[in-house]
């Protein structure tokens, strides 16, 4: 009996009990689609983290005021200002492993154009910041070191800000805007970057020279930097050396005793990315294993229905044996039946899982990534489930004694 014939017989048997076959399918469909959707969403999250961090630059190190420890009364990162402008200068000039460093001061402010107004994030920084983030311009140019020194009222806008203040497809370079009612000249527009990992919009930002920021937008103490320092390491593969040097330098400058805790923190973005990814990976694994359990339950459903089917068709099996079916023919027939169920369920599950993932991502704005191999793995895995859970009923059928089977009522 050839395979095509076995398949035909199996298909007929399944179509004979359409409702039952469908319900059995459902178990596998739910399992597989859950696996696919969970993995797609999990992988999407992971990829988003990856993309965000790679867009931030792998050689980025962030130095902040305040200690590492988040514990109790000590006060966390940024709770007290400790970084000074001379610290920044020292970082820029004394460390060879530092390519560039830039201060980052930020606040929210109301923006105004001739046409519209918009509330957004204002960053006070230096031209080096654009280098560190490897951000390029869609039009115009970045403010210069001279602008910083002269504290000129110049600004670089993100695309969202342009859209909100001037409307889409408008080039505002040379136009004036007001930030907290202070007039600024637009010198450039950033290239569009899209949403980032935590839903912040890097396009919804306006950047001004830090000197202007301090003079016109948010003052603060003279000596301290009311924000953080972004540092680009010279060697992206050896950011840990840069970190070490930064730490040593600042400990010295802040006169921190040998074993005492630092009053600043140094973060390596690669480490942060890894920690983030580790988190999403664990989450994905957890989701996927829950989904896999439901696939297993689907498998048990197949086994159950196949056992019922074998019992119901005992006489048929006896007859098939009497007219010449070998035990292997019977085994193949039932195995192909459960395989058909599980593979069809697997394919439908993949389709439904992908659609469900798309639907969810549209609904909640999650990003998606469906690794091509997960589709193959899911179908293969459900086929495996079909074989594993179909084997016992099929063997039971194949082992039937033809005489007893024919006599079965």
């Amino acid at each position, binding site marked *: 009996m050839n395979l095509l014939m076995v398949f035909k017989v199996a298909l007929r048997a399944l179509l004979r009990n359409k409702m039952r076959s469908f319900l059995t399918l459902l178990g596998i469909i739910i399992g597989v689609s859950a696996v696919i959707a969970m993995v797609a969403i999990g992988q999407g999250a992971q990829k988003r983290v990856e993309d965000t961090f790679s867009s931030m630059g792998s050689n980025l190190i962030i130095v902040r005021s305040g200690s590492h420890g988040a514990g109790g009364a000590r006060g966390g990162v940024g709770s007290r200002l400790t970084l000074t402008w001379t610290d920044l200068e020292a970082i820029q000039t004394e460390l060879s492993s530092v390519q560039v460093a830039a201060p980052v001061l930020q606040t929210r402010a109301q923006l105004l154009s001739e046409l519209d107004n918009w509330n957004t994030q204002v960053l006070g920084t230096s031209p080096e910041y654009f280098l560190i983030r490897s951000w390029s311009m869609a039009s115009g140019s970045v403010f210069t070191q001279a602008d910083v020194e002269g504290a000129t009222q110049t600004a670089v806008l993100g695309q969202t800000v342009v859209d909100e203040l001037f409307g889409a497809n408008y080039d505002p370079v040379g136009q004036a805007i007001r930030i907290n009612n202070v007039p600024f000249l637009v010198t450039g527009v950033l290239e569009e970057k899209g949403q980032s990992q935590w839903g912040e919009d890097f396009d919804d930002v306006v950047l001004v020279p830090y000197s202007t920021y301090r003079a016109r937008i948010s003052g603060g103490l003279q000596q301290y930097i009311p924000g953080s320092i972004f540092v680009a390491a010279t060697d992206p593969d050896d950011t840990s050396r840069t970190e070490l040097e930064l730490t040593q330098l600042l400990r010295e400058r802040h006169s921190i005793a040998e074993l005492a805790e630092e009053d600043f923190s140094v973060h390596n973005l690669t480490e942060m990315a890894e920690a983030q990814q580790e988190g999403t990976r664990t989450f994905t694994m957890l989701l996927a294993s829950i989904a896999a359990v439901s696939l297993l339950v689907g498998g048990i459903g197949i086994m159950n229905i196949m056992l019922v089917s074998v019992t119901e068709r005992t006489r048929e099996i006896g*007859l*098939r044996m*009497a*007219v*010449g*079916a070998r035990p292997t023919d019977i085994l193949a027939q039932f195995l192909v039946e459960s395989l058909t169920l599980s593979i069809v369920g697997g394919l439908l599950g993949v389709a439904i899982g992908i659609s469900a993932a798309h639907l969810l991502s549209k609904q909640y704005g999650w990003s998606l990534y469906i690794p091509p191999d997960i589709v193959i793995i899911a179908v293969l895995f459900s086929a495996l489930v079909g074989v594993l859970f179909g084997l016992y009923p099929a063997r039971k059928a194949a082992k039937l004694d*033809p*005489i007893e089977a024919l006599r079965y009522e």
Partner: protein
Amino acid sequence: MTTNGTLVALDKVTRLYRMGDVEVQALRQVSTTIQEGEFVAVMGSSGSGKSTLMNILGCLDRPTSGRYLLWERDVSRLGRADLAEIRNQTLGFVFQNFNLLARTSALENVELPLIYGGLASRKRHRRATEALQRVGLGDRMDHHPNQLSGGQQQRVAIARAIVSDPRLILADEPTGNLDSRTTAEIMGLFAELNQAKMTIVLVTHEVDVAAYASRILWMKDGQVVLDQPHTPSTPLVLSHPDGDQDPGRPEPPSPPDRSTDGSIASLAAQQAHT
């Protein structure tokens, strides 16, 4: 009727059933041969071992001891797969309850043995059609069993039994579920097949049915106690195999047309009613 070779040779075939501590000897040292072209009717009271014998002849079961040569091949120790192949190629079965696949057309039912014989679809179709025409159901090929009468269903079953052109047809009480007119039709069909040189072994309780055979085997307690030739389609008169009475059962009145007192025929007539 021609006999041109030994088809079946049983040599001291014994079949034991063990149920816990109790042993039942369903067959005791049965030795006999069946020639090609014979039409054998196996008779005997209930529990005498007729079905057990048929199962062994049909390669559905193996003897506990003794040898069974089918067409000069010793099949008494073959494995399940080999036996399946022999059933497929050499044997045809007709059952009392027809055993057709439900919700499956007559044609597909008849094709079933050919599927396991590995025949291509077109050939299968042709041979199944021929077999159905041969049993007079050329116009019912697409009917499902529940659309056919009992007699027609049994014809489909016979078509299925002959479709792979087997050496031997085994029928265990094929008319047991049919009325007397349909029984006559079905037996006529068997007689036709036998005239076309098909070897047939048939179990029956009815003298009228056995009367179609060319040889009668009478079984009692797992043994063949009477082996008698018979001219087909003549009234069946059997010599008395001593003491095959069923003591626990009151004798039902014999039908007037077959009350040959003291003969096995009247005894068989009684059993037909049990």
